[in-house]
């Protein structure tokens, strides 16, 4: 996977100073975070369902090869085709081959992070096939030649005015010349343009939120209904997805589907939740006559048996992004990967290599909110720590940080040295403080005080106070 995570520090700094972005990011707290809390509170068994979801995914991942074969057999029995792709290049070539066989000129697409991961759109364009994103957010991104900044809300970084400008720039060729200012008018205009594209497309490409082994179904959820139009109007339907999306049964799938929207947007259910199983049958009045599923590995099987294996449980709900204080302050683009936030900090190094994405697992305060809200209870902070260890072992950590960690190891390993250092540091910090606050620190401390003030130490250390109270509270 190609990433631009090397420039994380510079991009994060720029994001903090970007007033438009900072304003846009404020929507997360009042939208997703509160909505998830309300949805979870309304469901009496929500926590027990999360345990069960974790176990279903853990079981499936442990027996993934068997479930993949079962899924393949069921799709094939219905006249569908399953294709296996080791990497992004193979997946792109498979999709292009199917499109060429269908004589395709235009392809409608519903939102799919896996097709973002394999950078399918530029590849199709290079080969003379026009991909048309139909999820409103993805459509805006495509017009702006940007990448999504959130795995479920691709244009969360944009303001209404920016969307208005984008439409005003690109829609005159469809006969729309007015710059719109009302959201509902913008949606109406995009709807009428995309409706014509839906009807004329030769191939429809969707992702899959889940694959059901016992039936060979691909399951897609949307609020717009665009995946259903993408999968139902053209004569060819291609599902492009990762090998980890399997669940054994329909009942398992419904459990996951009760957790996914509640964790993602706080909805009890999305407007559309559709199971696509094989091509159209004899007697069906509509539906594609050709059905393909492309199963992408691209580094996932290498996570099996490692400390990152549990990441394969991820159902891409985005709750960890929504609840992450780092993501909330810098947005998704700074991460330089289509998978940002805590899940991206674990997944991106797994797929692209820690040498290319080392900053990401370091961009965490380990506050643990991501793990608290993960519907399948992935221990994200622990996995970020594993990446930091690997980075350190491979000498990828910057020299200054390595020196600092070594020094810290010496201090922390000896109680006497630790207490002496703490006493000295506390004294010095209180010397430079003014009314309980420190405005500016030299050396490593400047990194903290360049952005914000620091509280002065209160005096006695915790250990001294503990002793003073005789080891009691």
């Amino acid at each position: 996977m190609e990433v631009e995570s090397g420039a994380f520090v510079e991009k994060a700094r720029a994001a903090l100073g970007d007033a438009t972005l900072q304003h846009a990011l404020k929507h997360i707290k009042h939208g997703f975070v509160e909505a998830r809390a309300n949805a979870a509170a309304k469901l009496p068994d929500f926590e027990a369902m999360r345990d069960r979801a974790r176990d279903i995914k853990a079981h499936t991942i442990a027996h993934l090869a068997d479930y993949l074969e079962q899924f393949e057999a069921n799709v094939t029995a219905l006249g569908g085709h399953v294709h296996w792709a080791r990497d992004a290049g193979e997946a792109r070539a498979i999709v292009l081959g199917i499109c060429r066989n269908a004589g395709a000129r235009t392809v409608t697409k519903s939102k799919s992070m896996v097709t973002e991961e394999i950078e399918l759109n530029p590849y199709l364009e290079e080969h003379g096939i026009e991909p048309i994103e139909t999820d409103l957010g993805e459509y805006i991104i495509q017009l702006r030649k940007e990448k999504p900044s959130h795995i479920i809300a691709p244009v969360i970084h944009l303001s209404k005015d920016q969307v208005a400008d984008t439409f005003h720039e690109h829609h005159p060729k469809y006969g729309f010349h007015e710059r719109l200012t009302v959201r509902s008018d913008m949606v109406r205009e995009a709807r009428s343009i995309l409706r014509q594209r839906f009807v004329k497309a030769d191939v429809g490409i969707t992702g899959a939120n889940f694959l059901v082994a016992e039936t060979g179904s691909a399951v897609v959820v949307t609020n717009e209904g665009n995946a259903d139009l993408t999968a139902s109007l053209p004569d060819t339907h291609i599902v492009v997805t990762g090998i980890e999306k399997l669940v054994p049964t329909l009942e398992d799938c419904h459990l996951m589907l009760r957790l996914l929207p509640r964790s993602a947007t706080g909805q009890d259910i999305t407007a559309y939740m559709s199971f696509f199983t094989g091509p159209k049958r004899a007697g069906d009045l509509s539906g594609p006559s050709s059905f393909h599923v492309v199963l992408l590995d691209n580094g996932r099987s290498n996570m099996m048996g490692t400390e990152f294996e549990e990441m394969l449980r991820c159902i891409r709900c985005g709750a960890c992004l929504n609840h992450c204080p780092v993501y909330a302050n810098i947005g998704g683009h700074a991460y330089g990967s289509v998978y940002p936030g805590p899940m991206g900090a674990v997944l991106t190094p797994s797929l692209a290599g820690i040498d290319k994405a080392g900053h990401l697992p370091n961009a965490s305060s380990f506050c643990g909110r991501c793990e608290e809200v993960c519907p399948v209870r992935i221990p994200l902070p622990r996995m970020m720590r594993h990446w930091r260890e690997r980075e350190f072992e491979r000498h990828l950590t910057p020299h200054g940080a390595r020196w600092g960690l070594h020094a810290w190891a010496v201090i922390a390993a000896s109680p006497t040295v630790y207490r002496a250092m703490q006493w000295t540091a506390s004294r010095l910090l209180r010397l430079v403080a003014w009314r309980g606050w420190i405005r500016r620190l030299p050396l490593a401390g400047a990194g903290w005080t360049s952005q914000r003030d620091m509280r002065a130490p209160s005096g006695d250390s915790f250990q001294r106070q503990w002793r003073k109270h005789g080891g009691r509270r």
Partner: protein
Amino acid sequence: MADDSRAEILARLRQAVPRQTAEHAPHQAFSTWQAPGATDIQGRFVARLEAARGTVERIALLADVPDAVARYLAGQNLPARLNVAPELRQLLDFSAGAVTIHDALPVEDGHAVLTSCIAAVAETGTFVAASGPGRDPRLNYLAETLIVVVGAGQIVEAYEEIWTRLRVRTGKETPRLVSFITGPSRTADIEQTIEWGAHGPRRLHVLISDETP
């Protein structure tokens, strides 16, 4: 090359020793949120549907559908133009003439569409569309205004029951499309504010009939 990829991916998955294991426990039903005050299944379905911005009218007979449709369209100030789903065409008599019937696929906005469903789910106020002989589920997504006839006896409590019912009717095979639809189409992509009618219906009206189509 294709066979190599398949073999290699499966081999890598089988060679690794998984770190997580869990038995595949039998299906377990969890309690789902129920609308306060609504004691019967139909009441729960209606409460959840209304919470998802759907509207409802209860009717006794299928013969009441044409009048109910005409009343709804007039009440909403919508043109009295209607596409009727194929499976309902023989069942309903629109010859009284209050609405004009169109057969072409409703690609352009301005049409209302009348469809039926294979079942409905009280859990979230959802109706279930499916492909099958003589059915065209595309109508559910293309309509600007969607009116769905739900038989009172078609409402089940939870999603899982849909599959049990389907298997009784169609045997083991799953239809090409089974679609759980809840409320009108919507998007919150622009500044996290909900707008209705993203690609599918702007309005969803459900006629609950004592008689099942």
